[in-house]
């Protein structure tokens, strides 16, 4: 359990009629099925999804690389798109963390600070929102399986949503969820870190792969595409067990197990 967890009070809105979804660039290019799964689950819970096509990236890559000006300009673009007061849901802990905790820092001392602060208060991690706001009910359609859950650093320490993945999975009665040893340790991705310090990053992901493998699970899940890309990529490269290579986003796993397909959620 996260240490700060002892004092964190999170405020949630009542279940809204409409929400925004922010896709994130990794979901957009590599894992669109997890974004679609998030949309289906939301609509299954009776919440309409608004997806503005003008959205691009949260600005995190530039922010964490120390290109504040560039990050600010991209953040401003996003802040200008989601103008309705709907909650804004992100299927990724780190992009969520960027918008929720770093936007205010990014605009500190500028004319956009208040806007950024108000914007950040509307940000929720999609899985967390499903669990704590949507009152979702799911019927597990799959056969018995065991999955290892990787919880990301940003969900743990920025979004404080570590437990929501497990809570969502608990609705699937045939799914047994296990946690790897040293679950709270970083997988070694860290965006540009993995490219600037490939050896250190690799040493970290090797350990993560080995802890996940030791769980003996049939697959592994993550709510964060960065971690997913890193761990899955390392497992594939070293021909690690099939279970790890089959790793996927938590949302696409849940939607599939619940038997949701792309147009089920269309409320017509």
């Amino acid at each position, binding site marked *: 359990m996260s240490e700060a967890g002892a004092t964190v009070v999170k405020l949630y809105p009542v279940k809204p009629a409409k929400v925004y979804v922010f896709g994130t660039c990794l979901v957009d*290019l590599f894992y669109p099925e997890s974004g679609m799964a998030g949309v289906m689950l939301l609509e299954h819970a009776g919440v309409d999804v608004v997806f503005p096509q003008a959205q691009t990236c949260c600005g995190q890559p530039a922010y964490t690389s120390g290109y504040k000006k560039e990050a600010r300009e991209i953040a401003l673009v996003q802040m200008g798109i989601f103008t309705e007061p709907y909650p804004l849901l992100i299927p990724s802990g780190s992009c969520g963390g960027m918008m929720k905790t770093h936007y205010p820092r990014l605009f500190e001392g500028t004319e956009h600070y208040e806007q950024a602060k108000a914007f950040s208060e509307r940000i929720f991690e999609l899985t967390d929102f499903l669990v704590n706001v949507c009152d979702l009910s799911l019927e597990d359609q799959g056969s018995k399986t065991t999955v290892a859950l990787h919880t990301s650093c940003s969900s743990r320490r920025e979004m404080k949503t570590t437990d929501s993945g497990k809570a969502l999975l608990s609705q699937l009665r045939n799914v047994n969820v296990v946690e790897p040893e040293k679950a709270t340790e970083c997988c070694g991705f860290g965006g540009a870190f993995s490219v600037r310090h490939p050896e250190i990053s690799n040493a970290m992901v090797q350990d993560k792969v080995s802890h996940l493998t030791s769980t003996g699970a049939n697959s592994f899940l993550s709510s964060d595409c960065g971690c997913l890309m890193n761990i899955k990529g390392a497992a594939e490269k070293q021909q690690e067990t099939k279970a790890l290579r089959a790793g996927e986003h938590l949302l696409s796993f849940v939607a599939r197990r619940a038997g949701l397909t792309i147009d089920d959620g269309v409320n017509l």
Partner: protein
Amino acid sequence: MSLSQGKNTFQSRSRAAIEDPKLRANFLSAMDGLMSKRDQAFEDKAQLERLRILGAQVRQNALVKLPELLVELETKLTQKGVQVHWAQSPEEAVDIIKAISLNVGAKNIIKGKSMVSEEIHLNEKMAEIGVRCLESDLGEYIIQLAKETPSHIVMPAIHKNTAEIADLLHEKTGIERKEDAIYMTEQARLQLRKNFMAADIGLSGVNFAVAETGTLCLVENEGNGRLSTTVPKTHIAIMGIEKVVEKLEDVTPLLSLLTRSATGQAITTYFNMISGPRKENELDGPESVHLVLLDHGRTQMYQDDELLETLRCIRCAACMNHCPVYTRVGGHAYGFTYPGPIGKILMPHLEGLDETQALPTASSLCGACAEVCPVKIPIPDLLVRLREESNNENRQTSRVKGAGVKRHGIEPIIWSMWRWWHQGEKRYNFMTSMMAQFRFLQPKTLSPWTHYRSLPKLAKKTFHQQMKERQVRINRQAENLKATSKGEKL
């Protein structure tokens, strides 16, 4: 001292450390032990959080009043007969200590553990004038025999296992080789006793300096701190200017946080409160006491509200014990006095960003350090801040020494292009849909990512495209529905 250029870079040192299985195993097991001890020491997590908030406030309060508190400290200490010296640079600090040594005709200095003395490279500087510095902290004693530097700020010899220490002591001191920690400690103790008695000066660090009372607090477990500060005729304490606190009562939460965070102890074996030289009727204690206050880049942090938070540090090392990078590369790979997360945000101010530019980048920003920091230093935010300073276009106006060091080459151009790409809906969607359409052209390798990982495969259709198509379907269905209902009406 620059270690960041040429072949001896952070990258090359960390690579070598990762390839050393013994070193990695030593750090991994030591850090696992320290993490679990700390966890057990803070059983009640809500209480821990309250204590951390208090600790952060106490330190922040002291920093806000830093100039006044330092003057008050100097006044109180002077009244008690302590001679206070101010040093802006390591060179000045060394000169002060050299002058004191020459004045008392010192040949030998016995040292309690002091990271500030490491920061100013005291041992080698004193050797220049023929004064021998002997370390009395067991870990420091070991690394001095090995002619190494500390790899950890609390446990300087943590990179060595029992077998390596047995080899070293056998080789350097001639004692029997036994992999027995108690035996080796006893042997070291015998040698250290002689060193204490032969020393002309005792040199120590300071954990907290209380302005209100003029008290220097020293936290230790081996008793070497007490001997260093009481046996020799002269005691020199050295501290960074940030170590001052306002009141004696401020020490209580900080001490509790320090010992629990560092070693999982509720309290250390020794806690020394030094308030001046031996008085007339007293039987022991040094005849003269000096305090050297060192700046060395600290006022640079002091002048900036965000960077100031770095100075809250009480040097417990919990950040490095919990750091996935430190655990894997060890302390020496960093190449500077203070390793680990705190070193990454501190060393750039001490040595300049130009000398330390790799340090702020060597983090995945996982936040494990900030989560355990007893005084709530937002280490990841400060790392990002230093990355920003590295790219700062206005190096003249930056408060950080060496700012703008990375503002050249291809990187700024790449980020400008990245910005352009993500600024417009049309160009972004055009480019991502092109990538999806021509995904068969995706390269198999992309160095250095694919050195250790495969690349994720580009999706057939982007999320944007899928959502757009879905919207079209929804609209069509809605129209059909409307048409049907109209038809029904007719």
